[in-house]
């Protein structure tokens, strides 16, 4: 009896091991096919994680970029808002986190939120926190800035002549 139980347990274990191995390889092959050809041979939710683990570096651009903010005070004057407390990570990660709404916007079929509403939400949250510290603030404006890269440093070309600046959101 005990021998039969052991044999049965061994069979179940071996079957599970085969299922795990074959399933794992099949999902990765499907993700690899999607990676190379954009053909979806298994449902996307099944391969999404595997595809994400084999996505190459694609952040190279001929420009640097950052999100900046200005507050508008009661008297109409303006003041720069330091966004670094809201993005406490290293500068490149902060820039990518600020850039992500663009990525979501570009593949809006998969987007959990769109570009305009995301930036408006960021502006709304920044305004609430800034107003708590500085009640004279009436509004916050978010700007997207980008400038050419340079071998002389990340900020060297961030000068008015080369800087592109566009308003992306205002709160309230």
């Amino acid at each position: 009896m005990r021998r039969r139980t052991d044999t049965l347990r061994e069979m179940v274990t071996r079957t599970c091991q085969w299922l795990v191995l074959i399933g794992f390889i099949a999902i990765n092959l499907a993700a690899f096919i999607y990676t190379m050809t954009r053909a979806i041979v298994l449902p996307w939710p099944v391969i999404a994680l595997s595809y994400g683990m084999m996505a190459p570096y694609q952040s190279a651009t001929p420009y640097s970029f950052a999100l900046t903010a200005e507050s508008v005070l009661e008297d109409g004057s303006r003041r720069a808002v330091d966004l670094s407390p809201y993005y406490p990570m290293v500068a490149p990660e902060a820039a990518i986190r600020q850039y992500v709404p663009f990525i979501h916007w570009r593949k809006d079929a998969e987007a959990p939120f769109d570009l305009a509403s995301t930036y408006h939400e960021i502006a709304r949250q920044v305004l609430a926190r800034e107003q708590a510290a500085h009640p004279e603030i009436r509004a916050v404006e978010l700007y997207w800035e980008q400038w050419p890269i340079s071998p002389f440093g990340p900020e060297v070309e961030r000068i008015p002549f080369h800087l592109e600046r566009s308003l992306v959101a205002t709160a309230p």
Partner: protein
Amino acid sequence: MTLISVRAGIEQWAFRRTAPHPQALLRAGLGAFLLFYWGLKVLQVPALFSDRALWLPWPDATWHPFFQWLVRAPDPAVAYGIYGAFMLCLALFTIGVWMRPAALLAALFYVYYWLISLHLFPTSYDRLFPFLLVVMAFSAGDRALSVRMWWKYGSWFAWDEASVLGQRIVALQVAFTYLGVGWQKMVLPAWQSGDVLAQSVMGIWGTPLAFWLTRWNVPAWVYDRLTFMVMAFEFAMPFGLWIPRWQWLFFAMGMVFHVLIAVLMGIWWFLVLIPAYVAFIEPETLLAMLQRALPISDSPGPPPSFSPRHFGLGRHRTVGTAQ
């Protein structure tokens, strides 16, 4: 070669019960790395994971109410409590005590952090880490060089035989990651010239060393050749790692590659792949290597004797005898 012999060969390769030391080193290496990686965030917890952060969770109003409840912004004290529980799980995983529940819980915490924050910086490695935690939760990572073995046998160097499947899954995943990353570059338009390399080291990720190197103003063809070398390396890597005769060369090239990425672009998180190469070493080979430095026996169970020479204390045996 018959179907039965192929099946037996695969079973021998993927499921055989053997020394779990590669899985133990994977456990300790991955756990230590994650403790360091997440430990660096300790001062950023309120600004990243609490109601003081810019709060843009992944689930929206269309998700099940449970997820909307789950991703509500906690106050900083609660955020630190969650973070502390996560770090505790990672610590238990690292030392190999209650490894399985600790790894599974850590993976669940990872999913939580993905939903509330990491999805805004959706990287390969923040997908790879929780996946590896799940694999390790079903592995034999705590069957050697662990607190569990110390509790069971009274020796850190005791070990229990276990299936090699966990090690194989980790190795396959690392190989698939190199395969997808490397081969996709052959078809991506951005990778068809050296511009991508030049822009990478001068762009937002460039380090002072990278900027210094770019100021040498080398011709564009140098970047073209370097890009080709990177692609050739990543093309061969998923295969070279498996060939015992060549794998040490690929380990070395992988180390150089990831260290260069770390020092030129500040992307150091993939350094974890270097210790993960241990997954490509056969368990018996690694056991023999470890036995040269540590009192580990050939067979499962505790070491037959403790020899102080292993700790630089002399050559006389003090515990047990091996006559």
